[in-house]
């Protein structure tokens, strides 16, 4: 679970690197739930000149088969319409968080 927005906070960067490292060591990542400002990470218009593109990084993780979910309600609060999201991620409700909690044997959260 990621609880902070991109570029403002290290949370989503830490999550990204944690996932890469975990997968490299043979672990399965059941999913990523982007919550509160974390949903801003999937905006396809993110375009930071000369810096890492976090939305693309998450889209790549999604393309590799990891379920990347941004909270629907949080998205609505922040005007993040479905057509604004990058490919390979989806918007869904807290039911997805419950599914991840049920499916995984470890739960890690990133934020303050």
């Amino acid at each position, binding site marked *: 679970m990621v*609880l902070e927005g991109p570029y403002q906070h290290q949370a989503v960067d830490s999550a990204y690197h944690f996932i890469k490292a975990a997968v490299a060591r043979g672990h399965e990542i059941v999913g990523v739930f982007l919550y509160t400002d974390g949903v801003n990470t999937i905006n396809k218009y993110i375009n930071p000149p000369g810096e890492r593109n976090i939305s693309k990084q998450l889209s790549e993780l999604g393309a590799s088969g990891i379920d990347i979910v941004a909270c629907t309600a949080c998205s609505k609060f922040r005007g993040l319409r479905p057509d604004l999201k990058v490919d390979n991620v989806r918007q869904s409700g807290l039911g997805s968080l419950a599914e991840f*909690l049920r499916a995984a044997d470890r739960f890690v*959260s990133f934020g303050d």
Partner: protein
Amino acid sequence: MEKVIVMLRKAPYGSVYSAEAFRTIMGIAVFEMDICVALIDDGVYVLVKDQNPEKLDMKPLGDGFLMLKDFNVNRFVVHGESLFERGLQADDLVLDAEIVDNETFTKIISDYGRVLPF
């Protein structure tokens, strides 16, 4: 049944976290999980009686926790030290919670395993 702790660490209105913690509890409780609501640090303010955030154009948060029993959320744990050092007592809270010491709080977290910190 999956055991989950939702931990509230922040004051109710200065940021969105406590309100989101409440929404999370509601959201995952319908999936029949064993949920413990744990309050520590400024999070203990979330359950204080008679909150009135009208001037902030927000809705009171504490009273909402009373209806969690209808969702089978029955365990509320409060970190005693956090409560007492803010000049509060068990009577100041909207519901009956377990007031526990540091050691017990830590043990409960360890027992539940899955922790959602807000």
